[in-house]
């Protein structure tokens, strides 16, 4: 029997290992436009110890290991570019500790965001975590490995800023902990110990995140989404600055899209408001609409698009089926809020060139310290030309991000190379040293963040 297959079955059990064509096919594809990349094995471990044993074996055999969470990046970040073993981490999905008084949860990295939301809703409805703008099957660890952000980005920043602790299996197999948990304390803070930020944003190329302590935040009793609409995109930064100054919203997202037609060339700001009482909700509405947005209405350049719409968590997205084609992919970027008008205009041009209805979205991070701006491109999975158009549009958009002075969020390999081609040489060399030191055999998700 194949030596690696045999080793994997001994570690995780025969049911959870495969080298059959059906599993290799399934794990060769992600949901976006990336061409298939075939692994040689798929394994689904249950514990950090099993992950550690697999990684040690992979070092001996010099075989690549690619950690996979929900597989929702769309950018091919968990595709096995050099073959090897795909580790499907979704069996590692236990919620280990919910500490309501210290407002954190310790959770295995393969747990879905949907599971955490449901758990909090049931056991601590006054607390919430930041849900990414992804289907609820996205995993906690996967989202951190790509520096994700979510629906609490305005008040609290990136999801990866909400960490109290991490457990990671290093590329050489050691299980390490970071934060207060590393000194045997509860998982309540990542600080003020020396900063070892070696794993976030690395797409699993420096280690496999296996446990996480996430901060939890107050979850109010009432929530609604209001929408403010302007026609002139140049007004969006001012509106967002005004709204972040007043600080009454839980989430702020500016968006425009060709479909549905009523939204075409209009710019909508979805404003999530939450409160523990009707008075609090009304106070926040007054601060937002009467104090900050009324001048746009009086000037005839802005309008209220909707009031008190339900704001569901998790979000349900149907955007994958806009072309009845089962696919879309987007470029995400971190941009200054002031760049919204240019991002919109140039993105719409790219979409037009490729005959794809444009969809753009900017989610405010912090007090307008930046925004995650995304350009989405729907495609028909059954039409190779449509897929190629989307792929070309994505690459052009990566170039656009660079041109506009942004950084690409969770870049695909093409985008990673663009970023590294512009990166400060000393920073680049440090990345290389860190990677080489942690992963001497180069087995961890090779091809990602690979410095030449």
């Amino acid at each position, binding site marked *: 029997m194949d030596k690696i297959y045999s080793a994997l079955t001994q570690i995780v059990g025969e049911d959870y290992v495969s080298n059959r064509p059906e*599993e290799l096919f399934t794990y060769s*594809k992600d*949901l976006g436009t990336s061409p298939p990349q075939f692994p040689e094995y798929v394994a689904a471990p249950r514990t950090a110890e099993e992950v550690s044993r697999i990684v040690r074996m992979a070092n001996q055999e010099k075989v690549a290991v690619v950690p996979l969470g929900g597989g*929702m990046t769309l950018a091919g970040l968990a595709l096995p570019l050099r073959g090897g073993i795909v580790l499907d981490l979704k069996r590692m999905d236990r919620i280990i500790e919910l500490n309501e008084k210290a407002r954190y949860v310790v959770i295995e990295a393969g747990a*879905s965001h*949907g599971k955490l939301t*449901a758990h909090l809703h049931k056991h601590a409805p006054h607390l919430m975590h930041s849900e990414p703008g992804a289907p609820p*099957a996205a995993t906690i660890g996967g989202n951190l490995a790509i520096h994700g952000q979510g629906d609490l980005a305005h008040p609290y920043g990136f999801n990866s800023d909400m960490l109290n602790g991490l457990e990671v299996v290093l590329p050489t197999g050691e299980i390490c902990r970071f934060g207060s948990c590393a000194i045997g304390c509860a998982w309540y803070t990542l600080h003020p110990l020396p900063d070892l930020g070696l794993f976030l944003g690395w797409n699993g190329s420096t280690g496999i995140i296996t446990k996480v302590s996430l901060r939890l935040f107050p979850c109010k009793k009432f929530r609604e989404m209001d929408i403010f609409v302007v026609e002139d995109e140049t007004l969006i930064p001012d509106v967002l600055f005004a709204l972040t100054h007043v600080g009454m919203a839980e989430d702020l997202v500016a968006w425009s899209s060709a479909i549905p037609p009523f939204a075409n060339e209009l710019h909508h700001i979805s404003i999530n408001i939450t409160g523990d009482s009707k008075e609090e909700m009304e106070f926040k509405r007054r601060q937002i609409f009467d104090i900050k947005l009324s001048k746009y209405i009086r000037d005839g350049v802005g309008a209220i698009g909707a009031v008190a719409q339900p704001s569901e968590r998790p979000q349900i997205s149907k955007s994958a089926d806009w072309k009845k084609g*089962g696919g879309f992919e987007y470029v995400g970027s971190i941009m200054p809020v002031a760049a919204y008008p240019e991002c919109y205009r140039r993105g719409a041009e790219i979409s037009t060139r490729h005959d794809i209805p444009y969809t753009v979205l900017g989610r405010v991070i912090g007090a307008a310290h930046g925004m995650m701006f995304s350009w989405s491109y729907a495609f028909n999975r059954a039409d190779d030309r449509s897929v190629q158009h989307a792929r070309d549009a994505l690459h052009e958009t990566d170039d656009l991000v660079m041109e506009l002075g942004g950084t690409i969020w969770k870049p695909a390999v093409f985008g990673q190379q663009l970023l590294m081609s512009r990166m400060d040489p000393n920073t680049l060399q440090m990345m290389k040293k860190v990677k080489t030191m942690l992963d001497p055999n180069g087995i961890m998700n090779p091809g990602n963040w690979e410095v030449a």
Partner: protein
Amino acid sequence: MALAQYKYKDDIHRCFRCGYCKFPGDWSDVTNCPAYARFRMESYSTGGRLWLIRAWVNGELQWSEHLGRIVYACAACNNCVEKCPLSFSDDIVQMVVAAKNEMVELGLLPTPVKTYLQNVQLHGNPYGLAAKRRGEWMADLAVAPYDDQEFLLFVGSEGAYDSRAQQAARALALTLQAAGLSFGVLGKEETDDGNEVELLGEDGLAEMVAQQNIQTFQKKGVRKIVTFSPHAYNAFKAIYPKYGGRFEVWHYTQLLAQLMRKGAIKPAGAEAAKITFHDPCFLGRWHNEYKAPRQVLQAIPGVQLVEMARNKKSALCCGGGAGNAVIDLLGGSPDSPARIRAREAAATGAAVLAVACPNCLTMLEDAVKVEGLEDRLAVRDIAELIRP
């Protein structure tokens, strides 16, 4: 080799593999798809299965026993149909069935599926037992043959042959007799209802057994049918009309609820105070009937009905649908859906796990035994809980 005739060739690529289909209504876990719960590989999720079917249909992937097992591991529980937010969601299970149609057409079937279909063809039941033994379940009961009574009681292959399901079928017959209901049975003249045969992709055989039953029903003047199994209920409600068989169809829990309302059935005290109920997929998600079984249970004096966390539209399937109660592609593991369900039932603190389906009955009773829970959790068909 591409399969040009595959029915959903123009739609199957629309699955994005977003994973909504894995969840129950409250998003509490990714294990509400029984096949994915068992194997935890994306290939066994609804999305993975649809992508594999598409690859096979397009000729990117060759058929194999393993591919066949992945496709046939779908228990047709309809959880994916319930949860998928996209406009093609109603067709998801049928996309899988259409792939099975192609496999049948090409003679490419996993061995247990082939055996199942041959048994139905040869013996009129999936167990391969003699057709002449079909009436043995009621040998010592004074159940009348159908002869223009108000109802035909259709016990189905499970009730007729499976020893555990026979007990429940007998309890049902006794209850209906005690209620004074006018009903009869077909005995040896009954044959398999064909529900699973259709879901296993053998349309020709499904039509044949349907026609056989329809002819029998029509010859005997049957107008109203009460079914023991929700699978037969689905066959008569949703499949037989395609072949001209239109009857008034009741699942027995619906009839019991009505008889109780009329006072024709007055159940004695409960076997246990605390009972939990497992929704059968072909009554619940397939036909939106969640009330009747609960009304029956709640009418039993002394019963406290406690719900499992996953219930009604979000109930976890026992893994017995689409022939899996017999072909058993989802068994053999602590992660088998029936064993997960048995643990969930035990976690409610209930002493009885009530079911309303002979497939669920055998699947869950076996699971309770393997889990070592039989000392504190009994699996009972609702018919057994109210028998006189």
